[in-house]
């Protein structure tokens, strides 16, 4: 796996969401990702970034373009925050479960939208979510 492009974006307020989404869109365009996949990636990214703002008061996102041995290219985003963590990750990954008053589709929805989804959380320490979307996947 080779990392071709790298950038870290801080998310601190709601206005940062739009800026961040534009950056991700740039990355997706750089590898010529199709419109549908790009929209899926952007939507997943904005779900996760909203979670980060809402439950952890912000954090940072590492954006990378990665290239796999099988000639797959894709965009990988790593969201890390220092929030309270998620007490019950299985519940959080269920459709319709929310500790806030949202639809409860953020995490499970984002998982369905991307190719690889990985979540690590530690109570009181924070949460790290990594998503990868392949150009054709």
């Amino acid at each position, binding site marked *: 796996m080779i990392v071709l492009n790298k950038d870290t974006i801080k998310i601190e307020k709601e206005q940062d969401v*739009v800026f961040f989404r534009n950056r991700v869109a740039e990355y997706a365009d750089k590898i010529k990702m199709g419109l549908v996949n790009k*929209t*899926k990636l952007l939507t997943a990214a904005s779900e996760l970034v*909203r979670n980060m703002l809402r439950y952890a008061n912000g954090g940072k996102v590492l954006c990378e373009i990665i290239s796999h041995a099988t000639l797959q290219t894709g965009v990988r985003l790593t969201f890390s925050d220092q929030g309270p963590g998620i007490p019950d990750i299985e519940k959080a990954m269920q459709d319709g479960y929310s500790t806030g008053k*949202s639809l409860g*589709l*953020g995490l499970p*929805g984002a998982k*369905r*939208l991307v190719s690889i989804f990985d979540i690590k959380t530690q109570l009181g320490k924070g949460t790290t979510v990594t998503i990868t979307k392949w150009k054709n996947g």
Partner: protein
Amino acid sequence: MAAKITVYQALNKNAKKLHEDWLTQQMQDEGLREDLISNEELRLESEEFLKTFLAAIKDDLLEDSNSSNFDKLNEMLAGISINRARHGFSPRETGYYIFSLKQAIFKTLEKEITDLKKLYTEILRVNKLIDSLATVTFETFIRGREEVIIRQTNEISDISTPVIQVWDNILALPIIGTLDSSRTQVVMESLLMKIVETESTIAILDISGVPAVDSLVAQHLIKTVSATRLMGAECIISGIRPEIAQTIVHLGIDLSGINTKASLSHALRFAFQTLRLEVRKKTDKTAS
């Protein structure tokens, strides 16, 4: 005797000359914006600033620019910087205003203080003071700029939510840009007000201009639709692009309870049907 002279005395004695030097210094700068500020204005502004400056250092306490002596000076400097930010000066031009004073002061001190060692320490002190004043300039300059940005953001969110009456009893509301909580509030409010005002029964929300529909945006849309229904009007969401449709399905958002159409014209046609209206091409009746 000359060696004992304080900075204040040295500057006060040469106040007129200092003012002139400072002005020359400012005018020498290529960045001077004569289109934004006239020489006369600059002269008055500088004179007043210098007066306040001299009053502030009267006790020869240069070290602490946070002391109450400097309150008035800082306030005035902040006023000047904010004013400049609003008038479109660049940060460099604003910064140069205070930095050029440094040059002028050094020139005067050089003449008045003959003892080199004393000159050196005094210059260091003045340097430190002016630097801290410059920090104030930057801070307030940026704050002034931020105010401009905030004002524009508010203006944009006001402009970008027009409710249009496209037909009797039919309202359309094109949404452009990201839908966040505050924006939804504005959209909902203006839509509901307009429904009451025009007694409309159908409202079309067009989201072709919304870049991405995530669960939060969807939730806002659902809320708006429920609110319109409570007012007795039917709400149609139009402008759902193919990629957005696919994303919504994958995300698992249930919009089945809502009337959705691909384009605004579709929605309009549906509205006509609901209201039992017909749009027809005119046929010439002269033949019969």
